[in-house]
């Protein structure tokens, strides 16, 4: 298994920039895995690979379609945006059903509080 540095052009004409690295046994598999692991959300217009310790870069032969062509908004993790408002809504819905959260989370699940307690 070799380490391959992954280089990206964010936009056409941008210089190559190292954006990460992957493990792969050969160039073919490295190309496929780099595309899947680093460019699934349109993070660049094209990419290249350089085996760690070597100078030669290998540019992706066909960057068309990297980042996908079908709507992928469901892949974006937006579930935690506005959590406070969502929590209030959940509490209200629970209250309508006669349910309440009547105690805080167990102490062991609150690492900061536990640490403070230990330090005090």
């Amino acid at each position, binding site marked *: 298994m070799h380490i391959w540095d992954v280089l990206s052009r964010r936009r056409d004409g941008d210089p190559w920039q190292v954006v990460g690295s992957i493990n792969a046994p050969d160039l073919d598999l490295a190309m496929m895995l780099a595309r899947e692991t680093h460019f699934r959300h349109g993070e660049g217009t094209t990419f290249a690979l350089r085996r760690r310790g070597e100078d030669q870069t290998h540019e992706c032969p066909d960057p*068309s379609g990297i980042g996908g062509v*079908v709507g992928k908004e469901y892949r974006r993790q937006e579930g935690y945006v506005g959590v406070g408002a969502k929590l209030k809504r959940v509490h209200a819905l629970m209250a309508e059903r006669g349910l309440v959260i009547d105690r805080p989370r167990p102490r062991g699940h609150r690492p900061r509080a536990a640490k403070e307690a230990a330090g005090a």
Partner: protein
Amino acid sequence: MPDPRLGLVLALADDELVLGHRHSEWTGWAPYLEEDLAFSSIGQDEIGHARLLYELAERLAGKDADALALGREPGEYRHAILCERPNGEWGYTIARQYLYDTADDVRLASLEGSSFAELAAAVRTIRLEEKYHLEHAGQWFERLANGPVEARQRFAHGLEGAIGEALAVFEEVPDEKALVADGVLPRSNEDLLGEWLGRLGADLDRVSLDWVLTSHTGADGEMVPTSSGEIEAGPTLTVPGVERRDGRWVHVGEFAGQGGRRGRHTEDFAALWEEMTGLYRALPGATW
């Protein structure tokens, strides 16, 4: 009387949704991190393709895409049984992905010429991503087929387990004759199956794994030499409906694992359906 196009679109969408769900079960468990991410992404692609197709089916069915994807009873799903089988080990998973995606490629290439213009357009978009799935399956096909002995054995075992049911990806869909006559299906499934078998046979011949396509019989069957030179009855390896004629693999007779296109599924799907639709059934219309 439902629009006959609905059965076709649901078959295509359900294949992608159910197999995408199975792929997603590898998240956190794939052989190594890079592949874990790659396979998870492919699973998401398949579910994305399913959504595109369910949106197409909305006006044919009079239900929204979520209700079609998650609000049906198990017997109303039209996917091929191959797609619902548990992942098993990596050898089976890759064998199934290779078989399914090559079969899918043959049928999608044909559907690009469908008289159902919206379907043809959706298929053209889907194929832009499916080419990467084919590449992924092809990369692993070569590595496992030409890899160390154990990898090759496990892959061959996976192919043996999946090939019979993979044929039924091309099981006739409801109202197929009418769909072919209208040009919605430019070619019949039987015709497409013939093309796929030719391609599959060539791939397997090249890596000397074509024997997984061979039908053996048990008791009265074929005789094979053992390592001691004795002759004994061979193992039972049954792939219904595939024969070699004039150097080409052709389909004859029945499919293994047929029934998916008419809503007949295995117990494997019952467990998958429970999990896949659990949240939707508990809280229909929930958003997060």
